[in-house]
């Protein structure tokens, strides 16, 4: 059966909707810069969404309730993606989101009050749990029933998209609103600094001299539908999701295995699922965080599979920063934009290939004849690797 993508929504450092994001990608304009809207101790480069929390609340005409920034970003993208869809008894509909920080942007504040023995504002802690962010989105759109949240670090929303596809394929649901959201937090910025994998300059995915990642924030949602649902909704599909696979590295808590085992399994089996050969992949939207470890491991895996015929590949994290749990979904949207416009997005800040693997990413924006199948990778902390394949109908 075919699983169609009929809705797209995204908010990131490079735009507050699909059109703005696409524009920035075409202009090769990064959204990574010094943090301006959030008041953090550290002065770092990050992919911040260029709207304050108040501006987000106003944009969505929300009554001032307890919304974490993660929920706000999620609501923006979910609404854009959901568009004119409506609920219907005969279309079994669910929502799956993904997040790693949940409401931590608020909980950090609560915890600071506790530690510094100030009066605590309980509203700060009520939105902490991951599931809460998804419930907020579900409530905004009137969705009930199957409401779920996944949290597997950097592969989270890719896994959510995969789960949505599986639920539709196994005839549990007809239509799923699926994606992920993560806001910038001191917790994650300081966390990656403590691991010494945060680049204080602009990140350089796949470059020999890469020093680490820049954290980003954002959200993206897609609408997945089966044939029966599309017949009722009349939605026009962008493409299909043809392949997916999740594999564990089981190598180390934070490092991906140098032989790229988990990444190889994920890509290989996603192609098996899609019933396509490596030479049918038109473009890879890589995970490419800019860390020494991931970019090497991912390069090795790409070489394992594609051997001499490496398809054009790039990491768009040089535009958005590493949006953690939202990355899979944001990059799924970018992959679909690449496919629908027959365009390859550039891997910014690149100058020298990684010496061990000598791979050359796509460095310029390029119009090509046909982008037929796109492979999108999301490889997470703790060795959780997921690859998705989107294909033209």
């Amino acid at each position, binding site marked *: 059966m075919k699983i169609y993508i009929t809705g797209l929504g995204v908010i990131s450092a490079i735009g507050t909707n699909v059109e703005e994001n696409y524009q920035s990608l075409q202009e090769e304009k990064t959204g990574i810069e010094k943090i301006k809207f959030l008041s953090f101790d550290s002065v770092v480069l990050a992919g911040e969404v260029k709207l304050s929390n108040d501006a987000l609340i106003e944009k969505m005409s929300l009554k001032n309730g307890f919304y974490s920034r993660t929920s706000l970003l999620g609501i923006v993208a979910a609404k854009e993606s959901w568009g004119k869809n409506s609920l219907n008894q005969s279309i079994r509909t669910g929502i799956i989101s993904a997040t790693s920080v949940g409401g931590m942007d608020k909980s950090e504040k609560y915890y600071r009050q506790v530690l510094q023995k100030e009066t605590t504002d309980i509203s700060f802690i009520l939105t902490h749990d991951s599931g809460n962010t998804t419930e907020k989105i579900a409530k905004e759109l009137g969705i009930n029933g199957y409401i779920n949240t996944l949290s597997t670090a950097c592969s989270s929303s890719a896994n959510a998209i995969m789960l949505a596809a599986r639920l539709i394929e196994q005839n549990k649901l007809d239509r799923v609103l699926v994606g992920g959201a993560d806001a910038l937090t001191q917790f994650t910025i300081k966390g990656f600094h*403590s*691991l*010494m994998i945060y680049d204080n300059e602009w990140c350089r995915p796949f470059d020999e001299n890469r020093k680490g990642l820049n954290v980003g924030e954002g959200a993206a949602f897609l609408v997945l539908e089966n044939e029966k649902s599309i017949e009722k909704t009349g939605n026009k599909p962008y493409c299909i999701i043809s392949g997916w696979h999740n594999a564990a590295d089981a190598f*180390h*808590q*934070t*490092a991906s295995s140098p032989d790229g085992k988990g990444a190889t399994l994920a890509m290989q089996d996603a192609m098996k699922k899609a019933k396509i050969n490596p030479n049918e992949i038109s473009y890879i939207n890589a995970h490419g965080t800019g860390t020494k470890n991931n970019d090497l491991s991912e390069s090795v895996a790409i070489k394992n599979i594609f051997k001499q015929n490496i398809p054009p590949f790039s990491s768009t994290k040089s535009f958005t920063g590493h949006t953690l749990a939202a990355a899979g979904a944001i990059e799924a949207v970018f992959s679909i934009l690449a496919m629908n416009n027959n365009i390859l997005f550039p891997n910014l800040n690149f100058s020298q290939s990684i010496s061990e693997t000598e791979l050359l990413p796509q460095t310029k924006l390029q119009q090509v004849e046909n982008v037929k199948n796109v492979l999108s990778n999301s490889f997470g902390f703790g060795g959780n690797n997921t690859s998705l394949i989107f294909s033209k109908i």
Partner: protein
Amino acid sequence: MTSLKEDLKKQIIEQLNLEDVQVSDIQDDAPLFGGGLGLDSIDALELIVLLEKHYGIKITNPEKGKDVFYSINSMAEYITSPKG
């Protein structure tokens, strides 16, 4: 120097939460990594924190850690040697 090495061992046991390890279990010249202690890259980062916390020494490049943290001896030497 002996008491520095002994201090180092105590600090390492504490920082890395090596509950079942005694100071006497750690040989001065034995490799800390790839040996019996089972230390990994996360521990290497914790040792960088330890150096800064107890000795005010900053290592900004984690790759440099490989030489410095080879053994107790190499750590002690690094701490006591003059730095430019």
